């Protein structure tokens, strides 16, 4: 589904990603872990098409299509969804208004008829229990005066409605208490199926107790320095990222 080849990315002349290779097949969950400043969020933003970043080299293929050439809205319409680390407030625009427009844009792109108000509402009602979404939040302005937990739930709720092929979660667990974390993770698990895939960017192992990854990649200093299965996350939690620093030279050399 997603193939990243030797991706090098810079912002303001500073190289952040220094040759990333990653392959994600449908039905898989990949966790990207790493310390602050390792480039995790950059990777998430670059996949979604944030334009401040300069692509120095490499390729991003999504279902065989060159993602780098595509505008952010077209990537979204192709099925790439980014759950933001800091969801943005849009005053005066209701959550449902945004979602209905977004969904119908995506449907239009795919040659489907737009949903009318009733069909849309039926769909929304069906998806609300996935993240225990309160009715009241639907009519409120997008993310305005939402609590940290409500914002993150809202991201997952949007994902549930828009049904992307690839969901990218950018530190969705940050700022969540344990109950909210459980609800958000359960939401993702309900959305997950054999036809979609997830890239989960996180600092901590605890999210991965709920969203169990098929693969764990450790990103450090702009490179994936180690890949493994879910056990790797546990090992990291126990030993810390410093443990891998010693490991890095060896790992890179082995490649």
């Amino acid at each position, binding site marked *: 589904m997603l193939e990243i080849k030797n991706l090098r990315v810079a912002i303001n002349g500073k190289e952040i990603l220094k040759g990333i290779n990653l392959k994600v097949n449908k039905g898989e969950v990949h966790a990207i872990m790493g310390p602050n400043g390792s480039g995790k969020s950059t990777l998430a933003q670059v996949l979604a098409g944030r*334009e401040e970043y300069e692509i120095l080299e490499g390729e991003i293929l999504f279902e065989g299509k060159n993602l780098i050439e595509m505008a952010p809205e077209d990537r*979204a319409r192709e099925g790439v969804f980014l759950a933001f680390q800091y969801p943005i407030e849009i005053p005066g*625009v209701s959550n449902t208004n945004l979602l209905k427009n977004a969904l119908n844009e*995506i449907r239009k792109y795919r040659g489907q008829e737009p949903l009318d108000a009733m069909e849309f509402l039926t769909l929304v009602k069906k998806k609300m229990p996935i993240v225990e979404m309160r009715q009241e939040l639907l009519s409120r302005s997008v993310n305005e005066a939402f609590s940290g937990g409500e914002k993150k739930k809202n991201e997952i709720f949007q994902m549930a409605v828009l049904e992307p092929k690839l969901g990218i979660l950018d530190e969705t667990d940050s700022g969540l208490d344990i109950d909210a974390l459980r609800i958000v993770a359960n939401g993702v698990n309900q959305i997950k199926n054999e036809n979609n895939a997830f890239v989960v960017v996180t600092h901590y192992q605890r999210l991965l107790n709920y969203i169990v990854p098929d693969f764990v990649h450790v990103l450090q200093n702009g490179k994936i320095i180690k890949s493994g299965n879910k056990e790797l996350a546990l090992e990291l939690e126990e030993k810390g990222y410093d443990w891998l620093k010693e490991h890095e030279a060896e790992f890179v050399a082995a490649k």
Partner: protein
Amino acid sequence: MSTEVNEIEELANREYKYGFVTEVETESAPKGLNEDIIRLISQKKEEPEWMLEWRLKAFNHWKKMTEPNWQNVNFPPIDYQDIVYYSAPKKKKALNSLDEVDPEILKTFEKLGIPLEEQKILSGVAVDAVFDSVSVATTFKEKLAEEGVIFCSMSDALKEHPELVKQYIGSVVPYTDNYFAALNSAVFTDGSFVFIPKGVRCPMELSTYFRINAANTGQFERTLIVAEEGSYVSYLEGCTAPQRDENQLHAAVVELISLDNAEIKYSTIQNWYAGDKDGIGGIYNFVTKRGLCKGINSKISWTQVETGSSITWKYPSCVLQGENSIGEFYSVAVTNNMQQADTGTKMIHLGKNTRSTIVSKGISAGRSNNSYRGLVKVNKKASGARNFSQCDSLLIGDQCGAHTFPYLEVNNPSAIVEHEATTSKIGADQIFYLNQRGLSTEDAVNMIVNGYCKEVFNVLPMEFAVEAQKLLSVSLEGSVG
């Protein structure tokens, strides 16, 4: 600068594609302003003698005044002797069908959702027999007449109801009020007159559209609306369709009078030609609008959506004289390219327990300048007066300006006056967020702007609100997407 910001600027710098000029044959007076010209206007319009005298007094007063220069706008000096003050429009040269109209204009009409027959009228196409605007207007007038409502042009009012005009004209905006009001008083050529008798709730929203054939009111328009005790009227001025005019200077006067327990709701959508990218050729819109809440429990509400004109200078105001009277001002003012707007309101609290609300939303893009200027004045005797003001500015791009000049004069210790102000930018973050959900940049900007204006759109009459939203979309249309 990121591409995102460049795109926003591109949106902001779009040109006004929708202006159009129709050749109009006119019967005109020579250029220049003097007593003879004023006599000519009055004579052509077959006005009563007192009207002429009033005009002449206004003219003599105007000659002693100087053009104001305190407003935050710049323009070259106006040569008042280089203006034609009387020009009776003959019928516009009729086109045979919409096929003769610029397809770009038709596209705009479509985007704005203007009905086909209305499109024809707006573009000067001869209207066919199926839709006879005269008969529609007649049916409309009959219905109003049943209720005793008078809704006609100012010229007709001077002929048919001179005593009413005489009683109220200049009672809210005297000719001594300001430079442009004095000029208007001397030379106004037409406008609307509305009279709602005691206890009548006007059965429909009154729109200038219904007198479109009698329109062409020219650059000095005079509107007078009187709501007698316990009556109600909602009046809609303007049109989302772009309007171009030969006359650069527009100095209108609007007077509203609300008696005991009466309510006037006045909504405006203004989309005059704003000039080209460098501001050349746009309309100067220098308007005096004021309402007098004369009676107890009376109410006047101004709502405006201003997107056009190269310079806007207007402060729809309320004088709250009657006890418990209420004044409201809701405004969206959009400036783009080289447009300049200095607009706001004045709420003058004279009576006890008077209340006023001000919600102003400025949007600046391009290299434009948008100023909010508002006065809240509470007189000594206005105990229990309350005001709430909210003035928000939204910036698109980084070459435009937003300014807020709130003035407060509170002379009664029991008054409560609140003022809130915010300035924000459409952030690249907001646009990216919406892009990531599948919306184009253009749709994203529209969505953000419409959300920002929501409080004002909510108080517009339903149909007008839909039009206003579409107008903003068209206004912000650019080459991206």
